[in-house]
C-alpha cells in the first residue's frame, strides 16, 4: 500500500482521473483557471525559477560524481521534477529528450500496480532503461525517487545519464549489432534498485558482472541518486515554506501554463497549414561479420512526415507511410519518438517561459502501429534508435522552419539536425584491463544552416542543445587510441546561400593494446539522411570509414617523415593511402570488423548540416574566408558556388567579384539549359515506375510502404497515375 497518497484516491486512480479531466476540459488535470498565477504572477514565476535552479544545480553537482567522460565532459545527463502522476514540472539543461521519457516510466509504474508491489515508499529508488516502458535506448538509464512530504506523495525527482557501456553484443552504449532485444545489453525494467536512499548491493553486483566497464554505470547511478535526493530535499524545503496545498496547485498550474504557452507560441511564430517533408536512411551490412541472417542485410527506409498546424495552435506530426520495424537496432518506441519531439520543441519554441511537459501536451504524434516508429513487437531492438530520431526530427525542424519563414521570423529558421554517427569500442585497454565505452565527441556535429547565416561548425547535436565534443586528452585517458588528427571536413556542410555547419574528422593511432574492437552506430549509408531548404543542398553524409592495419607509422615517425592526419579531399585516394604503408581498408556503412591492434590507424568523420537558399547567392567574401580556413575547397567554391578566387599578395584566396558575377550569370543559363519542365520529367519517369525499374532495396521500400499505408499507396498512385499496388505488391490482397 502506498503510504498516504496526496488525495484519498490511490495513485493509479488519481492518474486515470487526471487523464479523464484532460480529455473532458482540454486542460491539464482539469486546471481551467490559473488562479495562483493570476493572484500573484511574480510569485508564480519565482517559484518556477526556483524549481529550475534546483534542477540545474543538482545536475551540475551530479556531473562531478560521475566517472564517465560522457557525463563529466559532454554533459550526457538531465534531471527533472515531476507531479505525483509523473508529469514534468521543471527540468535542467542537458539531454532534455529524456524529460518526457521519464514521465512515461513513472506513469508505467503507477499503471502497473507498483503501489501494491513492489510498493512506492519514502527512500525508494526505481530505475529503468527499457524503451517500451519509457526511455530511448538501453544506455539511457533513468532513476526516479518519490518525494514524500509528511507522509504524502507530492512528486518525483528523476535523473538520466547516457551510459558509455551497456553490456550488449558489441561493446559501447549504442549496440549497433543488436538485432533483437536479447542482444542489446543489461536491461533494468522499472526495477526498485534501492531503499532508504541506498542502492542495493545485489543490483550493483549485477551491474559489475554484466558490463564491460561497470565503473561508468555504477558511479552514474550514484550521481543520479544524489541529484534526485538533492532535488527532493529542495522541494520539501520549498513546501515547508509555501504549504502543501499551494505546492499541489502551483505544480499543476505550471504544466497547464506550459501547455497554453506552447499553443500561444505556435500561433505567434508559425502559419497554420499542412507541411510535408521526408528523408531516408540506408543500411549496408552484407558480408559484414556478426550479423545474423534475420532480415535483409541491406535496406533503405523512407521517413515521410506530414505536420499539421491547426488554428488552435496544436502541432500534429504524422509518420504514415514509413517502414515496418526490422531485425536491426534502429527501431524506436513511442517513448523515444515523444522524447525527440520534446527536445526539438525545447530548442525551437520553448526557449523562454516555463519549459515542462505542458509543451508536449500541446502536440500530437501519429505513429503508425507496426512501423519502426511504433513496433507492434516488444522484442525488437531499439539500441540505436537515434538513427531514426535524428533524421526524422531534422525533417521536423525544416517543417517548423518553413513556418517561421512564412511568418517572417527568419532568424528562427534552421535547416536542422543530422545524424551524428558514433564510435563504440571495447576489448583490452591501454592499462591491460578489460574495457568498453562509447566515444562521445559525436555530440558536436555541424548544424543545418539558418535562413540568415551559416550553420554552426562542430557545435550542434539534436539530442543535447548544450553541444560539446570533450577534450582530446580526456578521451585519450579512457581508450587505447591516441589522436593523430582532428580537423574540419571541408565541404561537409550542405551548399547554399548559407552553408550548413561543417563537421570534423578524427584520426587515431591504436596504442598499447592487442585487442580493440571498433564499431560505429547511427551511420546512414548510400543516401543522405538530411536535406537542405529553400534551394540549399543536403550535407554529404555518406562518408566511408578508412583504416590502415599494420601501418608503418612508427617507422615514418622515427625517420621524421610526414604522416597523414586526415583523409584529405580526394574521394578516390585518401592521404592515408598516399603517405602511410599498410593494409588499407575502406568500409561503406557501419564499421564492424575484426579487432584492431597497436599500430593500426582508424578514422571517423561526423556529419555537417544542410544548406539554405540558392548557392549562387552566397557571399563571395565569406567564401574566400571559408577556403582560407579549410571549410570549403577551392574546387567547390569554383564549381558549386560559382565564385572565382584569385590569390592576394600573400597567397591567400581573394574573391574576384566581377569575374564571379559573370561566372554565375553563365551558371544560371547553364542551369536553365540543362533543366526540363517537371511535367516532361514526370511523363518520362512514368515508364520506369510502371516497370518498377529500381534497385531491389528501393522496390522493397515501396512495397513495404504500400502494404502498411493506404495513404502512401494513394499518393503514389495519384502522383504517377499508376496502380502502385499492382506494380510493387502483385498478388497481395488489397
Amino acid at each position, binding site marked *: 500500500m502506498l503510504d498516504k497518497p496526496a488525495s484519498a484516491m490511490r495513485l493509479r486512480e488519481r492518474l486515470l482521473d487526471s487523464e479523464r479531466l484532460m480529455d473532458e476540459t482540454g486542460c491539464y488535470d482539469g486546471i481551467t483557471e490559473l488562479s495562483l498565477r493570476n493572484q500573484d504572477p511574480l510569485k508564480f514565476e519565482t517559484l518556477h525559477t526556483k524549481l529550475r535552479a534546483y534542477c540545474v544545480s543538482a545536475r551540475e553537482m551530479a556531473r562531478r560524481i560521475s566517472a564517465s567522460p560522457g557525463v563529466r565532459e559532454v554533459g550526457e545527463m538531465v534531471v527533472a521534477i515531476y507531479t505525483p502522476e509523473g508529469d514534468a514540472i521543471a527540468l535542467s539543461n542537458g539531454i532534455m529528450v529524456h524529460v518526457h521519457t521519464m514521465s512515461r516510466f513513472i506513469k508505467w509504474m503507477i499503471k502497473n500496480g507498483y503501489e501494491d508491489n513492489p510498493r512506492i515508499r519514502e527512500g525508494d529508488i526505481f530505475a529503468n532503461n527499457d524503451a517500451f516502458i519509457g526511455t530511448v535506448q538501453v544506455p539511457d538509464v533513468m532513476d526516479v525517487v518519490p518525494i514524500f512530504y509528511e507522509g504524502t506523495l507530492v512528486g518525483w525527482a528523476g535523473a538520466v545519464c547516457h551510459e558509455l557501456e551497456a553490456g550488449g553484443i558489441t561493446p559501447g552504449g549504442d549496440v549497433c549489432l543488436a538485432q533483437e532485444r536479447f542482444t542489446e545489453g543489461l536491461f533494468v525494467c522499472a526495477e526498485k534498485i534501492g531503499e532508504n536512499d541506498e542502492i542495493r548491493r545485489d543490483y550493483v553486483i549485477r551491474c559489475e558482472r554484466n558490463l564491460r566497464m561497470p565503473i561508468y554505470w555504477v558511479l552514474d547511478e550514484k550521481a543520479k541518486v544524489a541529484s534526485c535526493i538533492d532535488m527532493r530535499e529542495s522541494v520539501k524545503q520549498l513546501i515547508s515554506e509555501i504549504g502543501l496545498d499551494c505546492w499541489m496547485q502551483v505544480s499543476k498550474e505550471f504544466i497547464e501554463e506550459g501547455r497554453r504557452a506552447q499553443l500561444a507560441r505556435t*500561433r*505567434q511564430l508559425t*502559419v*497554420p*497549414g*499542412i*507541411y*510535408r517533408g521526408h528523408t*531516408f536512411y*540506408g543500411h549496408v551490412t552484407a558480408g559484414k561479420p556478426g550479423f545474423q541472417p534475420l532480415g535483409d542485410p541491406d535496406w*533503405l527506409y523512407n521517413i515521410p512526415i506530414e505536420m499539421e498546424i491547426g488554428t488552435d495552435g496544436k502541432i500534429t506530426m504524422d509518420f504514415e507511410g514509413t517502414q515496418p520495424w526490422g531485425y536491426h537496432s534502429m527501431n524506436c518506441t513511442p517513448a523515444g519518438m515523444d522524447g525527440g519531439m520534446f527536445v526539438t520543441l525545447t530548442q525551437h519554441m520553448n526557449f*523562454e517561459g516555463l519549459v515542462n511537459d505542458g509543451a508536449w501536451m500541446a502536440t500530437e504524434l501519429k505513429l503508425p502501429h507496426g512501423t519502426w516508429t511504433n513496433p507492434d513487437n516488444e522484442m525488437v531492438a531499439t539500441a540505436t534508435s537515434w538513427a531514426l530520431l535524428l533524421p526524422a526530427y531534422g525533417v521536423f525542424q525544416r517543417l517548423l522552419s*518553413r513556418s517561421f*519563414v*512564412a511568418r*517572417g*521570423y*527568419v*532568424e*528562427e529558421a534552421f535547416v536542422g539536425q543530422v545524424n551524428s554517427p558514433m564510435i563504440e569500442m571495447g576489448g583490452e585497454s591501454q592499462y591491460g584491463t578489460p574495457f568498453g565505452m562509447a566515444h562521445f565527441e559525436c555530440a558536436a556535429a555541424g548544424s543545418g544552416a539558418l535562413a540568415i*547565416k551559416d550553420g554552426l561548425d562542430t557545435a550542434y547535436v539534436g539530442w543535447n542543445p548544450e553541444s560539446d565534443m570533450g577534450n582530446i586528452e580526456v578521451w585519450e585517458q579512457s581508450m587505447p587510441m591516441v589522436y593523430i588528427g582532428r580537423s574540419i571536413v571541408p*565541404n561537409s556542410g550542405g551548399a547554399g546561400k548559407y552553408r550548413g555547419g561543417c563537421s570534423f574528422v578524427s584520426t587515431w593511432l591504436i596504442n598499447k593494446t592487442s585487442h580493440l574492437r571498433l564499431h560505429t552506430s547511427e551511420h546512414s549509408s*548510400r*543516401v*543522405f539522411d538530411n*536535406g537542405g531548404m*529553400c*534551394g*540549399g*543542398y*543536403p550535407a*554529404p553524409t*555518406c*562518408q*566511408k570509414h578508412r583504416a590502415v592495419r599494420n601501418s608503418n607509422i612508427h617507422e615514418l615517425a622515427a625517420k621524421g617523415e610526414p604522416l597523414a592526419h586526415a583523409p584529405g*579531399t580526394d*574521394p578516390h585516394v585518401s592521404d592515408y593511402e598516399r603517405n602511410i604503408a599498410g593494409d588499407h581498408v575502406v568500409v561503406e556503412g557501419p564499421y564492424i570488423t575484426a579487432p584492431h591492434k597497436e599500430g593500426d590507424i582508424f578514422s571517423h568523420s561526423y556529419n555537417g548540416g544542410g544548406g539554405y*537558399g*540558392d548557392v*549562387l547567392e552566397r557571399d563571395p567574401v565569406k567564401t574566400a574566408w571559408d577556403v582560407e580556413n579549410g571549410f570549403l575547397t577551392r*574546387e*567547390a567554391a569554383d564549381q*558549386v558556388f560559382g565564385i572565382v578566387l584569385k590569390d592576394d599578395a600573400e597567397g591567400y584566396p581573394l574573391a574576384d567579384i566581377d569575374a564571379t558575377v559573370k561566372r554565375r550569370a553563365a551558371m*544560371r*543559363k547553364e*542551369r*536553365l539549359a540543362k*533543366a*526540363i*519542365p*517537371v*511535367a516532361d*520529367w514526370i511523363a518520362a519517369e512514368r515508364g*520506369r515506375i510502371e516497370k518498377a525499374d*529500381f*534497385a531491389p532495396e*528501393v522496390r522493397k*521500400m515501396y512495397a513495404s510502404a504500400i502494404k502498411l499505408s493506404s495513404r502512401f499507396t494513394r499518393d503514389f498512385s495519384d*502522383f*504517377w497515375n499508376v496502380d502502385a499496388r499492382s506494380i510493387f505488391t502483385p498478388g497481395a490482397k488489397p
Partner: protein
Amino acid sequence: MTSYSKEIIRDLASGQLPWPQTRRIMSAYKDDDRFFKMVAVYQDRVAWNDPILLPVSDHLFICQSGDERITRCECGHSFGDYRKNWKLKAAIHVRNTEETLREIYPNSDLPDPEWMEIREFICPQCGTLHEVEAAAPGYPIVHDFEPDLEGFYRDWLGKPLQP
C-alpha cells in the same frame, strides 16, 4: 511590446544585420508586428505590384493577382494557383549519376544513385534554385506546404482576406 523598424527587419531578412544585433533579436521577446513588416520588406524587393499574402520560400511568395491567389517567383514568374504544388510548374534538373552528383560534391563520398537522386527545382524564367529534394528514385515530388491562408488571416492576424 517589442517592435523593430522596417530597416532593421529588411537587414535581418537579407542577412546584413550585424550578428550582435541579430543575436539580441533572437534572445528578445518576439515583435508581434513582424509579419506585415516583413511582407512590406518583400514587397519593396519585388518589381511587381500584386500584394504579397505569404512568403513560402526564400524567393517565392503567395500573392493576390486579380481574383486569383498564385505562387510567384521574385522575378515575377507565376507558378499558378497557390493551392497547387508550385514544383509541378517548375523546371527540374535531376542528378542521378555519379558524374552529376560529383559536380555538387567534388570532394566527398557520394550517395548511390540507385538509392538516391538530387532533384533541383528551378524557376524557368530567372533560373533561381528554389528547392532541392534528396529522394529515392521514383519517390513522388513533395508538396512542401499547403498554408491555411484564410484561417491564418482570419483567426491569427484578425484581418480576414476578402473572398
